[in-house]
């Protein structure tokens, strides 16, 4: 449900850290809460994003949810597949449903992220 090799935020995003480049998506819990995802709105490649600021949105049939930047940096890649197949966010949230890649400005920010155990604790709290 919450892979150990990933980091997480309280806003239900996951982050795969690979040196200074991070891949970002939303968690299994987030996609389940949203239901069928029909549209993912993402910034352009090259856009600057700031930690804790909204940088995009995920629309499901029933609701919209902002995406908050988990880290500060520059967008280096977008998952173009989501344009035609937004349901990948539901089907494979940690794989084909990834959203953006960001080059970090400051690796110190990584310390603020949650590990899988802490995130699972948060989800259990929300579900109870």
């Amino acid at each position, binding site marked *: 449900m919450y892979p150990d090799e990933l980091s997480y935020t309280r806003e239900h995003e996951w982050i795969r850290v690979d040196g200074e480049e991070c891949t970002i998506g939303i968690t299994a819990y987030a996609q389940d809460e949203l*239901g*069928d995802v*029909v*549209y993912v*709105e993402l910034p352009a490649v090259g856009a600057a994003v700031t930690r804790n600021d909204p940088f995009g*949105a995920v*629309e*499901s*049939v*029933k609701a*919209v949810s902002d995406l908050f930047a988990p880290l500060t940096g520059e967008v280096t890649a977008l998952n173009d597949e989501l*344009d035609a197949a937004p349901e990948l966010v539901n089907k494979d949230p940690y794989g084909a449903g990834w959203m953006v890649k960001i080059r970090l400005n400051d690796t110190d920010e990584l310390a603020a992220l949650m590990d899988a155990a802490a995130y699972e604790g948060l989800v259990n709290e929300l579900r109870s």
Partner: protein
Amino acid sequence: MVEFAGWDMPVQYAGLIAEHKAVRESAGVFDVSHMGEIAISGTDAATYLNHVLTNDVARLRKGRSHYTLICNEAGGVLDDAMLYRLDETAYLLVVNAGNAEAGWDWLRAQTGEFSPTLANVSERYSLLAVQGPRAEELLDPATGLDLAKLRRTRIRPTTVFGHEVLIGRTGYTGEDGVEIFAAPEDTGSIWEGILALDIAPAGLGARNTLRLEAGMALHGHELGLDINPIEAGLTRVVAMEKGPFIGRDSLAKVLEAGPTRRLRGLTLTERAVPRDGHPVTTTHGPGVITSGTFSPTLEAGIAMSFVPPECEIGDAVTVNIRDRDRGATLVDTPFFSNVTRWRAKSK
């Protein structure tokens, strides 16, 4: 599950889009027991109902139903409802859960010179809606009548899985289908029986996307105390010719002057999802979205909106969604409905 008007309501079972498609392509069942039911009877029940409701009760024949509105003197809509004529002088009014208590109080307060017998029978009925092109075929073996002969808007007492019920050929999805009024204690077993007929359970989420595609109003969105039926496009259920009724004078003025805004459908031409409250910009002035969603059938954002009356179908407009103007086109409603197809088939 979510809490709604004091009821625990299922939003979704298998997933909203899957449930929506099941209803459009086969059949689904909704538990809408939260709806309120008011029984009206007596020799002057019809004249009383013609006083408190906008549609013409005199035109409603025994065993049939029609859509109607409860208006106040100002012409605002207290609630929208389905009125079933069960017998010569016995009626059943199905009202929205959120307005059930207020509606009940209002109806009791308006009896005036009339002497109908009014009873709030919401606790006596649960309501299951079986909707979709295969609803008749799949449900028929479980019923005590030939469902093919129960035509649209009709209601009959019969049985489902041996339990006494009322079945009406009505719904809120833009599909053929029926609604089953059952005793609460029988409803669990009827529900289980229906699921065993390969009819998919569907939740409130799908109910909303289906009714929106069908261009049907939801009170609190397209209808309300500050919205009159003329601007909401429901003049067809306001029977001005029937004589005096509550709200008639106000509505006559609106009809004479023309509405100051009109409810119109719109379809997004970009990938975005309009929602309740989003501002609309037209060449004739501002408007606002009353309900919006992503249409699983059309695979596009769709919405109902109030726009200036000068706007015409086909006009290009924009919807401001999270600070970005998105292109849209005003369109006729329903956005999608199988009921017309079904009507053609049954002729």
